[in-house]
């Protein structure tokens, strides 16, 4: 690891193992980013006995030669939306493999979604996840959302109160929307009473039955059944309407809309927030950086597919189709949208409509992905590539480095801080480079590109459309809660 760095741990002279307290780690002359204070610049850090002992900002001659293009230190990332598939789908991912993948991606806290089997609809399932986390030895902190409905069946409420007592940070039937507006209203009220949010996967499933790809030019040419933007817009307007209604009875009702993907639905959220509704939302790296034209074989970033008038360029006209079409790792829910929608996701992130980037890390087995496009499971394995994708946005001048890191740290933390019962918990803690606090940080090198391959991904899910591509920002070290979570083997 460069510049000069030294990591020592408790157990061996060769450095700590994953899960062990980082006894001593010093990093000289790196670019520090602290999204809590808003400060970034050349600096040095010292970790001793798992505590971030000192953060020194360098000035003048000492700072010379240190730029934001090299080694960067930021707070550990917080993923508000991931699927670790345990219990029930351990072939696709486990808490252990997911935690390893998360740490490789720079994450130190991950909130997992409850669409497991059985669904996380009672505290027993949460205990299984926690026990798997402990057994993994990984220090990556696992938070969880409970299901809104029992068995995610959309009929009756899950054991919401018991789940709250056990420590879930909210409720979601993710993978699907809360089935009916009536149930959503009950869920918002009951969860609001408990001080927790409903996290909604906004999809009008009537409009998306048998849908395969965003209902647009690319789907028309490829003969794929259209997944209309209206499916998300309808669901978001339903959800906002029900939220406004529920607030009259329970002012602590909170709604978080996850993985929004269309310009129109983000605009609805923008207006609702301006009107004072307690609604937040997030976007994913793939909806920011990829567009539906990838299914036809394009591999350019979404901003490279944007025309001068803000519309989408034509990959056929541009001769931009360089990869084999119908790659099932691009099949995801919500689907990859147009370049213009991707630009709207970015605009929402920049203006604060969306305050976090979440991975929606959705690992799948080969059995579920090496099939016909229309029969493939939805989802992208993305927790290890999120940083690299955001850095591509930074490299292209679309997003500041500090903005990218904030979207992965303070952004999600601020969303959680808006949920009354979660506000006082560690999940909502400010994620900065704070002296005297347990070291929780990531070190990555923007100058060091790494190849995304099946072998380089620690997730069991190799369903990444970025396989075969190089990303910048190799993660060199991740420390979670003072313990080693990931260290680059070459570092």
């Amino acid at each position, binding site marked *: 690891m460069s510049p000069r760095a030294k990591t020592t741990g408790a157990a061996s002279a060769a450095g700590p193992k994953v899960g062990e307290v980082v006894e001593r780690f010093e990093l000289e002359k790196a670019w520090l980013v602290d999204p809590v204070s808003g400060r970034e610049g050349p600096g040095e850090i010292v970790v001793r006995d798992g505590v971030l002992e000192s953060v020194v900002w360098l000035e003048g001659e000492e700072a010379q030669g240190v730029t934001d293009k090299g080694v960067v230190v930021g707070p550990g990332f917080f993923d508000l939306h991931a699927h670790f598939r345990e219990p029930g789908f351990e072939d696709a991912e486990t808490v252990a493999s997911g935690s390893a993948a998360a740490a490789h991606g720079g994450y130190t806290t991950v909130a997992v979604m409850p669409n497991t089997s059985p669904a996380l609809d009672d505290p027993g399932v949460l205990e299984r996840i926690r026990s798997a986390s402990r057994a993994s030895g990984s220090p990556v902190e696992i938070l969880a959302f409970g299901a809104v409905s029992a068995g995610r069946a959309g009929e009756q409420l899950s054991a919401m109160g018991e789940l709250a007592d056990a420590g879930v940070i909210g409720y979601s039937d993710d993978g699907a929307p809360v089935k009916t507006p009536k149930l959503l209203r009950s869920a918002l009220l009951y969860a609001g009473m408990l001080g927790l949010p409903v996290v909604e996967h906004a999809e009008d499933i009537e409009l998306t039955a048998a849908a395969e790809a965003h209902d647009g030019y690319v789907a028309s040419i490829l*003969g794929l059944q259209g997944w209309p933007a209206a499916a998300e817009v309808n669901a978001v307007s339903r959800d906002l309407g029900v939220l406004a209604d529920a607030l009259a009875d329970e002012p602590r009702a909170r709604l978080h809309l996850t993985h929004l993907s269309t310009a129109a639905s983000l605009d609805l959220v923008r207006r609702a927030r301006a009107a004072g509704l307690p609604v937040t939302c997030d976007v994913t790296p793939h909806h920011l950086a990829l567009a539906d034209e990838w299914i036809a074989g394009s591999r350019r970033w979404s901003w490279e597919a944007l025309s001068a008038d803000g519309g989408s360029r034509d990959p056929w*006209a541009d001769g931009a189709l360089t990869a084999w079409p119908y790659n099932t790792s691009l099949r995801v829910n919500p689907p990859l949208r147009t370049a213009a929608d991707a630009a709207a996701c970015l605009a929402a992130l920049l203006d604060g409509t969306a305050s976090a980037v979440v991975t929606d890390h959705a690992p799948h087995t080969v059995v579920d992905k090496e099939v016909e496009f*229309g029969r493939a499971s939805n989802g992208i394995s993305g927790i290890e590539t999120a940083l690299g994708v955001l850095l591509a946005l930074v490299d292209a001048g679309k997003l500041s480095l500090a903005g990218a890191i904030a979207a992965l740290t303070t952004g999600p933390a601020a969303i959680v801080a808006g949920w009354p019962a979660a506000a006082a918990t560690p999940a909502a803690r400010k994620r900065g480079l704070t002296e005297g606090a347990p070291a929780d940080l990531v070190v990555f090198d923007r100058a060091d590109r790494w190849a995304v391959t099946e072998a380089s991904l620690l997730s069991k899910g190799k369903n990444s459309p970025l396989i075969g591509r190089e990303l910048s920002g190799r993660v060199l070290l991740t420390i979670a809660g003072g313990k080693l979570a990931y260290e680059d083997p070459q570092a």
Partner: protein
Amino acid sequence: MSVQAYGAAGVPEIDSAPTQEVVWHHRHLLDVDALTWPEIELIMRTTDEMKGILARPIRKVPALNGRRVTTLFYEASTRTRVSFETAARNLSADVVSISTATSSVTKGESLVDTIRTLEALGAEILVMRHSVSGAPYLAAEVFGGHVLNGGDGWHAHPTQALLDLYTMRQHLPGGDLRGRKVAIVGDILHSRVARSNIWSLTAAGADLWLCGPATLLRGMDRWATAWGDGAIPGHGRFHVTSDVEVAVRDADVVMALRIQRERMQGGLLPSLREYAARFGLNAERVSLAKPEAIVMHPGPMNEGVEIAPDVAVSGRAVITEQVANGVAVRMALLYLLAGAHETGRPHDAHSGEAIR
């Protein structure tokens, strides 16, 4: 062996095995979008040769003697399957025929496993029909031989588009479609025939009009708009309309597409009767086309729905010619593919070129 020269591309006499002289570098035929116009013309000329064979008393030549063609149909089909198998047998290929009703597919075997099994059993050329768009692309990724798309989902039906093109050329002076008006009327949204015909007919320079009720034209308007300014190299513009008279008026070619009964359940059409009344190709509508215009249909027909019975059997109808030409076009494609250079993985076939 006599070699008949066609410009730069030499096509050897068909009675001999394919040789390197065939200038054809596509390992698979998945859609016409990947074909350049000279390649399409090569297919047309090769089809001419095959027509010559079909005119002989004995229609069989040894060109693909010992080559193994497997037809794998995941969707019911009579004419396409029989057409491919007849084409392969005319070239003396060994034909294995698999339908999903009799295969391990009913036991839940994945497409990829099926393809690998067929390859292990010796399949060299795989003719595939599948209900999911893009499925042959997956097959081509795992199959070591050649994949010939016999129709995938809503996406593509390249041999149908090529036999349609061949049939149109037979009936147009000089075989030239440039500026000739072609109207395709029917369920465009769900039609792989329409999609492949868009690629081939805009490459041929035809004045292409797609027509149907708005519910069955979804997405076509934005496609036509995107191509309207000649954006795609090698392809002209095309038009979309729900006015059947506008589409058919002064047309040189009028093609009807099948309307499926399921479209009513999907809420896309009020009734077949209403479709027939508003969009069906009847004698009155066909009379708006040019006097010498031909009437086509890819089959199978719903007579009385998308095409009136008297139109289907009129002197203008070339529907049985399409079927006959289908055998010749498929012979040509089997022949060309069997002689294509081996280029390893399908990606290599494009050697960095854009895959259209």
